[in-house]
């Protein structure tokens, strides 16, 4: 009890939020996994694209379907022998090194998640901010606020996944289109949230006084209102990255994902499902990699959300 009493008089709310977050061991584990993932993704980009140590596109038909940690056969050209002298995670149906493909895919999967969510957040913040701040201006017969929010409602009406499928199926499914489609169909929650936050912030004293001082609108919005509305947006963005990675793998499963030869974790997994009995590692390695990363994003997001929400703290 005494410990709680001391904590509750602590004057800095951010400190308490940090402490709640650091006490959450699952969230911390998530942070560690994410840091490792970022390193893996950067290393993957570096080692497979610019300074090719692991070449994910080398085809060695003599060595197809080798289990993890197996040694290349003598039919493989010396130049094609992988680093470490063995296939760390085995080979696939064309004898490509799964480890190299996973490395390359980590960057692609991560960037699909992050770019798509960044797009969604920026659309959402822009529209929500406009609706919240300039909402009472009128364009003819309809106010800006109801125009934007009705559009948001319309977008919310469609089952997101089916809409993504429809659009992706009609566009060439390049990695950029997938990012854009996931982003464009995912901004509605952010927009609603930012609008509500702006509406309540606009009435608060520090904004009223900033307006009274004659600050320009952009300054009030960017410097005074946005920072106050951003933290919860970032929390939900963390979880959205997880969802975007899952969506990408689901699209790959249906055959609408990033097309080969480019590797993402989703399409390695989707291709691996055909060899689930002959070469289970092709299925299990990307599957558990996705599970681990998405889990990490979810845990970090939920940890932050719990740290920010004073009503959930133990009493």
């Amino acid at each position, binding site marked *: 009890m005494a410990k709680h009493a001391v904590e509750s008089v602590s004057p800095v709310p951010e400190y308490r939020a940090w402490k709640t977050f650091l006490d959450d061991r*699952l969230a911390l584990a998530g942070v560690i996994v994410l840091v490792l993932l970022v390193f893996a993704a950067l290393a993957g980009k570096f080692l497979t694209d610019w300074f090719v140590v692991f070449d994910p596109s080398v085809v060695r038909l003599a060595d197809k379907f080798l289990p993890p940690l197996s040694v290349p056969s003598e039919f493989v050209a010396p130049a094609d022998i992988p680093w470490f002298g063995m296939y760390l995670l085995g080979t696939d149906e064309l004898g490509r090194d799964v480890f190299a493909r996973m490395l390359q895919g980590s960057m692609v999967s991560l960037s699909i998640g992050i770019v798509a969510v960044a797009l969604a957040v920026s659309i959402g913040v822009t529209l929500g901010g406009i609706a919240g701040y300039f909402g009472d201006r009128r364009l003819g017969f309809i106010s800006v606020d*109801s125009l934007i*929010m*009705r559009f948001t*409602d*319309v*977008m*919310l*009406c*469609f*089952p*997101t*996944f*089916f*809409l993504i*499928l*429809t*659009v992706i*199926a*009609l*566009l060439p499914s390049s990695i950029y289109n997938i990012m854009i489609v996931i982003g464009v169909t995912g901004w509605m929650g952010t927009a609603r949230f930012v609008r509500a936050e702006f509406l309540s912030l606009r009435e608060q004293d520090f904004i009223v006084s900033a307006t009274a001082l004659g600050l320009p609108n952009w300054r009030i919005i960017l410097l005074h209102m946005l920072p106050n509305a951003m933290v919860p947006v970032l929390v939900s963005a963390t979880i959205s990255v*997880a969802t975007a990675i*899952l969506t990408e*793998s*689901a699209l790959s*499963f*249906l055959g609408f994902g990033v097309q080969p030869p480019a590797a993402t974790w*989703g399409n390695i*997994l989707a291709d691996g*499902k055909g060899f*689930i009995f002959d070469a289970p590692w092709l*299925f299990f390695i990307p*599957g558990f990699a*996705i*599970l681990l990363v*998405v*889990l990490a*994003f*979810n*845990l970090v997001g*939920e940890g932050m959300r719990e740290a920010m929400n004073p*009503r*959930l*703290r*133990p*009493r």
Partner: protein
Amino acid sequence: MISHAVILLAPGEPSEVDPSNPRMKPEDIAKIRAAFHLDDPLHVQYVYWMRDMVSGELTSFKDGQPVLPKIWSRFLNSLPLFVCATLIVWTLSFPVGIRAAVTRGSLYDRSTTFIAYGLISIPGFFLSYLFILWIVEGFNVPVIGMATFGMQDAHWLYRGMDQLWHLVIPSVMSALAGVAILSRYVRSQMLEVIGQDYIRTARAKGLDPDSVIYRHALRNALLPFVTMFGLMLPGLIGGSVIIEQIFAWPGIGRLGYDAILARDFPVILTINFIAAALTLAGTFLSDILYAVVDPRIRLQ
């Protein structure tokens, strides 16, 4: 309420689909384009589509069958799956979530939290494949289609049993992620309510813990779930694509998937339209339920 009426404008949205069809020979294209008004500008096509849909004459590009009966028969196939999955979700997640909230910080709470995160984070089809591998090895539960081939002439009782068995695995698989998400919501909602002053008062009065939890806390925690219940209605279409694909279930999600592959615009558009209509119905339903449940927002 007014806002929902505006949503009716929605079907304009799916007409953004590109009317070009790259998988045809040039002479076919001209013929088909003329027949299905594909050369007209988008808004004219949209008017044609609306007219045909309202009059019930909309036919599929692929096989010339009317769209609405086609979708309806698939819808009837999807319905049992959806109903079973929803039942599993709502009956499982409440006990799990409530118990986790009441015993906050216990081993039970932490393990269910972890399992729930795991279920949310795993790609649905990956989990389903793992499950199929395990189930087919260990138990004799069917995982393909809606009924065993060759059972059409059997007694209706056997046929019904057979179909029930086929329903088990797909509905469990489509329910799992829902259970995970919903039980997390139940838990955090219960935690918020349990922290309120009126719960402390109820405890201080000396009520027994069960009636504090179930009569005082749960009833207040239930409010947001009324909204969620309505919002789950469109999941009938969108959420089922992958599960139906895995288990070869001839439902509406698979119809949509096949329609997309075949560029069958009338079917795609109509499914999107039905989805939007379902969302609308769901929102409306949850508004009404909300008014029933919460006396503070009764209509004047």
